[in-house]
């Protein structure tokens, strides 16, 4: 079924289930308890999880397989976003043309940037991609303001032509839709204190992520994927074996750029505006973190890494001192104040500090990322399985 082997099929089905039941899984706490703070089952965050998942899956095809560390992939995401908004301004609010054009434009951009950057390897390649991305950012922020909206970003307006759609609906800007299916609509389900939200936009993005994930599994198992791994392993041997590494790396670069463009387009489909800060180097760094945190070169790693980072960012950054105080209420005042003072730098704006610590911990103690952690735990539980995986460590357990 699906042309996958047993292990991959199992993995794919697990991811399908995770995506399908995420509104439940991410909302483990009833609404009225203090821990509801940690619920992540609201549409914005769930959409962000799957969209960054797509971004990281694509990035992993380049970095995880070939080992080429790009520091400029946010540029393709940004370009995809701008292209998507333009389609919604000019053509229609239907997200399909927006997504297609996002992918195509990001693909062309990555072809150009990849063609130049891939003339170098190692740190020089990384610096070239970084330089290109920062150039894109600066252009978008200032010179290209008519195209990008500059500082304020590119937004829809009531004067947009939308030649095959409608310009306005009852005096308002229409919302993005998929053949009439409103991206911003959602259904709430209240069960005994829990409240679950099923958002159309989330499921739309989720299905696209599943397709993107499936294609990456196919790519990983294909001869092309084997060649990309060979590049990381020994590029010298590769050329003395009659293989030209350049087109392989360029193809991987463009594919990962198109994934980034798709992610950018989906962001727009969920919320139709695009800003230059999406192209900033910190955004490029974030996808590197996601991939490494989850496990570079593994199938599921980037998705997990994207999930963890998007979750930490959204949840920890909303915790403030009064929430901390409410957690430690029961303790004596002095202890309560002490704990709040200690934790204060790690929450709210300090969430980067938490992320940094988590990242350092993983890189130092679990170089293979979350996936490696999962594998080690799995091995602890079943010795028999450990024997199987030792000879052939299958990526993406």
């Amino acid at each position, binding site marked *: 079924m699906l*042309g*996958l*082997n047993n292990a991959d099929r199992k993995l794919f089905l697990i991811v399908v289930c995770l995506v399908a039941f995420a509104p439940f899984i991410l909302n483990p706490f009833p609404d009225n308890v203090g821990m509801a703070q940690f619920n992540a089952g609201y549409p914005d965050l769930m959409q962000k999880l799957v969209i960054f998942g797509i971004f990281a899956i694509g990035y992993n095809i380049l970095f995880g397989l070939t080992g080429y560390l790009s520091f400029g992939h946010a540029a393709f995401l940004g370009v995809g976003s701008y292209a998507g908004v333009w389609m919604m301004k000019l053509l229609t609010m239907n997200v399909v043309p927006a997504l297609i054009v996002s992918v195509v434009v990001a693909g062309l951009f990555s072809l150009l940037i990849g063609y130049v950057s891939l003339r170098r390897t190692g740190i020089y390649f990384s610096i070239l991609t970084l330089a290109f991305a920062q150039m894109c950012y600066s252009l978008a922020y200032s010179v290209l303001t008519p195209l990008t909206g500059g500082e304020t970003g590119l937004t829809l307006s009531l004067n947009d032509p939308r030649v095959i759609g409608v310009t306005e609906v009852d005096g308002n800007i229409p919302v993005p839709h998929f053949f009439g299916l409103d991206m911003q609509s959602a259904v709430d389900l209240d069960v005994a204190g829990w409240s679950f939200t099923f958002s159309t936009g989330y499921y739309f993005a989720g299905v696209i992520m599943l397709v993107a994930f499936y*294609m990456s599994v*196919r*790519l990983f*198992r*294909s*001869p*092309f*994927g*084997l*060649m990309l*791994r*060979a590049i*990381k*392993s*020994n590029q*010298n*041997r*590769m*050329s*003395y*074996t*009659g*293989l*030209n590494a350049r*087109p*392989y790396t360029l*193809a991987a670069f463009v*594919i990962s750029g198109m994934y980034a463009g798709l992610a950018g387009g989906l962001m727009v489909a969920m919320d139709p505006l695009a800003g230059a800060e999406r192209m900033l180097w910190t955004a490029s760094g974030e996808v590197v973190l996601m991939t490494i945190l989850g496990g570079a070169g593994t199938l599921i790693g980037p998705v997990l890494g994207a999930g963890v980072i998007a979750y930490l960012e959204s949840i920890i950054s909303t915790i403030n001192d009064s929430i901390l105080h409410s957690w430690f209420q029961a303790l004596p005042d002095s202890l309560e104040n002490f704990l709040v003072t200690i934790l204060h730098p790690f929450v709210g704006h300090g969430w980067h500090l938490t992320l940094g610590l988590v990242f350092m911990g993983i890189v130092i103690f679990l170089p293979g990322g979350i996936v490696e952690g999962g594998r080690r735990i799995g091995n602890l539980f079943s010795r028999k399985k450990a024997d199987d995986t030792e*000879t*052939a460590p299958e990526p993406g357990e």
Partner: protein
Amino acid sequence: MGILEVNGVNKRFGGLQALGDVNLDVQEGTCHAIIGPNGAGKSTLLNCLVGKLAPDTGSVIFQGNPVLGRKPHEINQMGISRVFQTPEIFSDQTVLENVLIPCFARRDGSFRMHAYESVNDEGDILTQAEEMLEEVNMLSKKDMMASSLSRGDKRRLEMAMSLVQQPQLLLLDEPTAGMARADTNNTIALLKEIKEKRNITMVIIEHDMHVVFSLADRITVLAQGTPLVEDIPENIKGHPKVREAYLGEAQV
């Protein structure tokens, strides 16, 4: 006219003349050995043949086509395959994958966008690779990571990777160095069989005279970058110049 013609090749590294006016004419279907003391320029000569180094002057003609100026992968696609002095393998891949990669390179050329098919569905290629591993006695190790192999096994793996491409010209840089005696004898037998069955031309660099005299049809002696003599093995053994430059030294 041989399958490989090397004419007047020179290569300097700074003040060192690594190759000085090297001429070589290798006949199709023969095994041509190059011997010489350490630092004689043997590996440098092979580097010039596979596009790793560009000689300062001279020409290299393979099957009537010039080799110099081409990229390493193009030279390989012409039918020249090389086994390196220090094994060059894909260490992060399994033994089987190491052999699959050259199989794909042979079938699909230097680049093919083959991103949707599964490697496991490539029945022909898989059989081809496994048969090759069987031939070098490594089939039982096919799922091992290449990095975990012994030095001798790495060499045999690299040889399998070259042979599976069925090149017209096989360049071997000390293929038995680091091998146990039994493995050396297996390698000799394998190379003999391949030469006879598949009519592959070989250029072999070797310090082990047992290997050289078992395989070579002609021998060139290289010393300080220049060929001293070129002759059939029987004449090389007793040649005074050779004793002086090489064998004498090796016997000390």
